[in-house]
């Protein structure tokens, strides 16, 4: 029994991790060649990258701040993908979540204690994102319209809606850059390392959610139903599962989680809503979810990895003059190596089986 357990842990955890390590190493080696071509010592460049991400308490805080929305949107992607639905609309759901947070956060909450207010706003934000994801979810479940296309297109709608809000109804009068007023203090998320550091409580919420989703996936009937629907619609129908309902649940919960990332940005990082609330965190979320092979706990690791790259990139540009774009290339390379090595690994597996 323990033997098979060891084998299972090895097979499901360490071997994938080792492959991930190899892919990342490959990506960095390839990146080093590019840095050399720019005329910089790659070791120096990578050192400044690491320093930029971990060099000070402030740097670490900023890295975790960036990790938070990536983690949450990554979890959102993974949740929908459990039923084999690709939620490309996480970026839009994040924007809707941010809008809902700004709107709810401007209400006066009277004497209610902070954590209750935060809970209420979180709930409202979750519902807003869920409703927004209901559009592609419903179209997919009832009319079999591709959730990929509808989700992607709704991203632009959400972004433009937020632009409208901060330039119109929610605009702080006489602000230089269009933005909303600060949300009520009780609705703001706690800055755990103190006021000077932007690291806020939603990172911990993200980690908690990852564990919760892990449990849902592998221990609950809901997770089981999601998996069966993902395995095939005919099989699920045969098993007596109401496929449209499960698909809608998958999308709505996914949208809700993505929307929480918006609250994290408004309530924890900025304290107000602005038009460019996310530089594409949702798309990073997609990448980290695929990197972690949709494992919720793995997404914690992969989102941290991506935030390190993002956080360190600026320092790298400042200190050694490597353009930030190069980090984008390295991110692309990581994905490239992961996907490439994955197919190679499958080939090896097949040969072993034969």
């Amino acid at each position, binding site marked *: 029994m323990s033997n098979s357990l060891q084998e299972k842990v090895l097979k499901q955890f360490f071997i994938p991790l080792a492959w991930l390590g190899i892919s990342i190493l490959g990506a960095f080696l390839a990146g080093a060649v590019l840095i050399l071509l720019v005329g910089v010592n790659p070791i120096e460049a990578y050192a400044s990258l690491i320093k930029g991400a971990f060099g000070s308490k402030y740097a670490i805080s900023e890295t975790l701040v960036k990790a938070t929305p990536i983690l949450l949107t990554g979890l959102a992607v993974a949740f929908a993908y459990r039923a084999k639905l690709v939620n490309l609309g996480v970026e839009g759901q994040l924007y809707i979540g941010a809008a809902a947070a700004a709107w709810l956060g401007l209400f006066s909450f009277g004497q209610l204690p902070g954590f209750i207010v935060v809970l209420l706003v979180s709930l409202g934000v979750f519902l807003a994102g869920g409703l927004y994801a209901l559009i592609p979810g419903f179209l997919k479940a009832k009319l079999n319209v591709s959730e990929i296309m509808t989700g992607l297109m709704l991203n632009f709608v959400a972004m433009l809606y937020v632009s409208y809000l901060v330039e119109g109804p929610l605009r702080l009068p006489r602000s230089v850059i269009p933005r909303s007023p600060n949300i009520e203090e009780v609705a703001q998320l706690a800055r755990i390392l103190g006021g000077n550091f932007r690291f806020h409580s939603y990172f911990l919420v993200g980690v908690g959610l990852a564990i919760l989703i892990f449990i849902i996936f592998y*221990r609950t*009937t809901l997770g089981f*139903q999601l*998996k069966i629907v993902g*395995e*095939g619609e005919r*099989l699920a*129908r*045969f098993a007596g599962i109401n496929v449209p309902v499960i698909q809608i649940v998958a999308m709505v919960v996914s949208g809700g989680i993505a929307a929480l990332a918006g609250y994290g940005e408004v309530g924890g990082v900025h304290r107000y809503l602005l038009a460019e609330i996310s530089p594409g965190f949702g798309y990073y979320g997609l990448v980290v979810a695929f990197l972690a092979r949709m494992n919720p706990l793995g997404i914690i690791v992969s989102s941290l990895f991506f935030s390190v790259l993002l956080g360190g990139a600026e320092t790298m540009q400042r200190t050694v003059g490597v353009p930030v774009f190069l980090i984008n290339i390295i991110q692309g390379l990581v994905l490239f190596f992961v996907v490439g090595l994955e197919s190679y690994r499958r080939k090896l597996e097949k040969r072993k089986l034969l």
Partner: protein
Amino acid sequence: MSENETLLKLEGITKRFPGVTANEKIDLELETGEIRCLLGENGAGKSTLMNIIYGLLQPDEGKILVKGKEVKFHSPRDAINHGIGMVHQHFMLIPTFNPVENVVIGKGGTRKIMPDIRGAEKKFVDLAKKYDMNLNPKTKIWQMSVGEQQRVEILKALYHGAEILILDEPTSVLTPKETEHLFKILRALKEEGCSIIFITHKLWEATTISDKITVLKQGKVIDTVETKSTDAKSLSWMLVGRKEIQKIEKKGGIEGERILEVDNVWARDDKGLDALKGISLEMNRGEILGLAGVAGNGQRELAEAISGLRPVTKGKIKLKGKEITRCNPRRIQKMGAAYIPEDRIHCGAGQNLTIKENLILKKYYREPFSRKGFLQFPKISNHCANLIDDYNVVCRGAETLGKQLSGGNLQKTILARELDAEPDFIIAEQPASGLDIGAGEFVQNQLIKSRNRGAGVLLISANLDEILLISDRVAVIFEGRIMGVMEADQVDIGIIGEWMLGSDGGKKNAEKETESLEEEKVQ
């Protein structure tokens, strides 16, 4: 064109696959301008033989002669170069291309940078006109009806210079009207000296269109007869006839109450055509009702309609006296119905699910397997270990994935899941197909066991032997209708065979439909 010239000759064609001999020493002679029908049950080896002629498969033994010269086909290209064309059951056309483009890519047009589309189009239109096929060369394939697509396939073969045209069950996708049109085209082709091999399950088609009929059974040629000098009865006897009927000894059935009533049920297939056209059936506890019929006559639709997976457009279904016509699948499962589907890969079991997950597929939500929404793994593991033992599933433990199991073990897993709860009513669709003899017997014994404890078993199979082996009564389905029901100990194979092939009944059905279609148009 000289009469009676042998165009194609097969000598002793033998093809073996692991475990089966699909074709055994097949001889066949095809004359110029002849329409030949190949008749046989599923798995008789018709498709294998045609694929050999078309170069998709290579025979293990035997010779193919075209116009008296021995040929060896390594690929369809060789066959096409020798004037052989084939229209598959599933069309090989690119949906987003128009017919002319489809024809050109098949003719090595892709090797040229600028294929002569205009010239091809002219030739195509001329050919279409010649055979009275109404086809617009500019319409994309996906916008065409199935009948039109088939005509494109035929034209494609002709364009490539086919003198021998193989049609693999061409009418299975056509409406009666389109079938008439197809027959007209085939007769015109025959006039031009084209030879046609026509594969079918339907007797009336064979007797209507062909000059000669070759009957295949279990990979062997039973006989070749002139169409003029034969009739439906002797053909069907040739097809299903056998000297003795094997039977498994069973205990006398329990005289049980009515378990299933199907009353004038109509349902559509995936394409939206009527697949069930007024099915009525009655079954009691403690009996196995064998539903015989050539595959694709509405069996799957009937099984799905009863299990709640397919909407019923008309009629009523009652299980244990309660109407279930519009119930969802889970309600019907909870009432004690089990369903062993034919499609083990996509429907019966998940390929990427473990045995454990496959075993609890239909009861994960029930105590003790789950409580308050949480799966109870210790209980599940225990339950699964017992089932794996009881049903003798050979595997490396309950975590083995569905795709790692052999067909027999996958089917045992499905049986374990479906039969463990001792259901009152079981639909078993082709339960032993693709299994080796041992696994097949295991499956049959399990069904008999269920019957003996008082369950009603609806056994759907295209394999008449299997049906006769274990059924108490035999019903035959043809084109969505029940042709008749017989007690198993009074079975007349000749009549069953006629029913299975629709004999003249099929023709009547077709005519009825054509009429009703025309009536609709008038209205």
